[in-house]
């Protein structure tokens, strides 16, 4: 199960868009938000209705044998996650930024309709999918949304905000009229706290506890009296929506794959779009990866923003080691086919992790220090060196000294060449050795002043 899902997503990530491996296809955009919301509700409600007080009183879902102690609570949670994954899946596989925007807009409408049906459960599932990292960061996708969609989305976002212990959602749920499906998580948290502060031990405490628990059970029992049977049924749509895409276990893998898909749609170029800084612009994809065998994101390049430390963490988690590091100066010789004749050198602390270079920029632009402390602790950007034709070009200058402190990395795929300057012969040789190793001997020894018709030393 583990593997097949991961593989499926990798196929999709590969750009092969393998239709066979995806659930039955239907053009979602052609289904009206009303119909989708109605059928989602038809699927949610029976599970919600089946929850028994016993499942809730003992907080069975927090225990190891939760599937036995609280089967319907577990099922409802799975429904939530399933809807949430489905939404991300559909958006990420829509086939381009424009289509993504259309899909996001469609789901905002579905969420709104779910709100009209008082189905807070799935409405929250959709909103949390839209707020998930892979979707949230798609800046260009969000930019394309209409003002109206934005307004609706913001409203719903506020409804599910965590502020003041989900004050808004609590107020909405408390005043909602039947039929309705609340977000069960609210009650689950409350029940956990009731259990903590009034442990099940009898005596006077029992009375207090009873009062609190009964209150919650009564509320839920009332909602369970809801009747959605008057809503139209669409069997075909229901079978599509009800399809179990992901069981609970590999969700981390699923999420990682979604993140990769998201990066392919809109790669990180300047910084991660953050709610606090809306300055960044995602540029068109230039480093599209063709080599998916590598599970690390180092097949592409970009700036890191807040993801810097996460990248290192990820590299570490996947068993990578930093094999060589040190201060280097780098300048652009050629980028995307354009030659930069007078580009300045920039100082970086560079680490090589497997097949990726991680760049740390200096703390101060004026300092000349070569120590690690002179550079920032979180990465600034990274560059994959697994591009199929990535080449190491050794400088062809005459004297031995120059030869070993200068080297170039060329990516003919994007027609980009960077030149590196090591601080010492020893460091230079060390870098060349490791790069040689990483690039498996794909080394070109063409002197670069012939390549670009320029003298090479700028020290």
């Amino acid at each position, binding site marked *: 199960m583990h593997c097949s899902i991961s593989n499926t997503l990798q196929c999709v990530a590969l750009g092969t868009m393998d239709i066979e491996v995806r659930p039955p296809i239907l053009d979602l955009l052609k289904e009206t938000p009303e119909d989708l919301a109605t059928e989602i509700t038809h699927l949610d409600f029976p599970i919600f209705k089946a929850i028994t007080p016993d499942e809730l009183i003992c907080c069975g879902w*927090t225990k*190891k044998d939760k599937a036995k102690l609280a089967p319907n609570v*577990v099922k409802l949670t799975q429904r939530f996650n399933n809807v949430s994954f489905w939404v991300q899946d559909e958006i990420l596989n829509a086939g381009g930024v424009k289509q993504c925007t259309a899909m996001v807009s469609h789901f905002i409408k579905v969420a709104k309709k779910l709100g009209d049906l008082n189905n807070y459960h799935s409405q929250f599932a959709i909103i949390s999918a839209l707020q*998930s990292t892979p979707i949230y960061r798609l800046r260009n996708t969000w930019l394309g949304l209409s003002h109206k969609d934005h307004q609706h989305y913001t409203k719903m*976002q506020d409804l599910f905000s965590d502020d003041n212990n989900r004050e808004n959602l609590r107020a909405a749920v408390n005043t909602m009229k039947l039929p309705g499906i609340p977000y069960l998580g609210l009650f689950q*948290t409350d029940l956990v706290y009731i259990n903590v502060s009034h442990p099940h031990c009898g005596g006077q405490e029992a009375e207090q506890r009873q009062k609190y628990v009964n209150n919650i059970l009564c509320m839920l029992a009332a909602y369970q009296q809801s009747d959605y049977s008057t809503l139209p049924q669409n069997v075909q749509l229901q079978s599509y929506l009800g399809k179990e895409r992901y069981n609970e276990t590999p*969700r981390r893998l699923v999420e990682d794959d979604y993140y990769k898909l998201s990066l392919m749609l809109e790669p990180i170029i300047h910084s991660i779009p953050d*709610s606090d800084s809306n300055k960044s612009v995602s540029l068109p994809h230039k480093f599209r990866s063709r080599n998916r065998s590598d599970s690390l994101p180092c097949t592409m390049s970009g700036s890191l923003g807040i993801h810097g430390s996460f990248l290192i963490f990820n590299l570490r988690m996947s068993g990578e080691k930093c094999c060589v590091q040190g201060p280097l100066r780098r300048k652009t010789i050629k980028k995307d086919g354009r030659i930069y004749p007078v580009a300045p050198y920039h100082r970086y602390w560079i680490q090589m992790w497997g097949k990726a270079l991680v760049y740390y920029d200096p703390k101060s632009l004026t300092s000349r220090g070569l120590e690690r402390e002179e550079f920032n602790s979180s990465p600034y950007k990274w560059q994959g060196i697994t591009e199929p034709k990535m080449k190491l070009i050794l400088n062809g200058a005459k004297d031995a000294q120059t030869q070993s402190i200068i080297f170039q990395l060329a990516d003919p795929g994007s027609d980009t060449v960077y030149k590196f300057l090591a601080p010492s012969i020893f460091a230079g040789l060390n870098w060349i050795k490791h790069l040689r190793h990483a690039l498996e001997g794909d080394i070109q020894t063409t002197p670069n002043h012939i390549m670009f018709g320029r003298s090479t030393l700028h020290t």
Partner: protein
Amino acid sequence: MSESYDFLFKFLVIGSAGTGKSCLLHHFIEGKFKAESNHTIGVEFGSKIINVGGKSVKLQIWDTAGQERFRSVTRSYYRGAAGALLVYDLTSRDSYNTLSNWLGDARTLASPNIMILTVGNKKDLEDERQVTFMEASRFSQENELMFLEASALTGENVEEAFLKCAKSILAKIETGGLCLAKRGGRTSWGNLGLRNAFLRRVMTQKS
């Protein structure tokens, strides 16, 4: 009702179900929840003012106990958090193994400046221990986290966990490691006057 404090820190408690996150919080806030007459948990639930090195800091602690299996841990939960307690149960290997997942979430969704403290809970159940101190300590070190073992039952190290985290946030602010000028920063300021005085001090120190 007005209360005064110098700093306001948003704190998160994260970790798998059954690790006793709610117990830790409950112990820390001294059973405030018990006293709530309302049937739902009050809005001020989960906050406490503590004294750190002569400054009063209001900790606003957010916890999603009971909802761990929902993938609804959204950005807003992590946004603006200054600190987080990453809780596992030292008698449950599984809960320890999921730490990296939670850490991954925190690293992606929260500010890179967030101070995270790993808490091995249920220290009182020494006989059932499945995760050694050394192992968890090494994990924490490798991931640049602080680490403590605590017991929500006996109260051992509960207060310390929150204090230690708050202390290092303050230390980071004072050494200028936390950028205060950034909009939507992780640390709110309870007292504007103090903030300005502080900023002035930071600036004079720098110049």
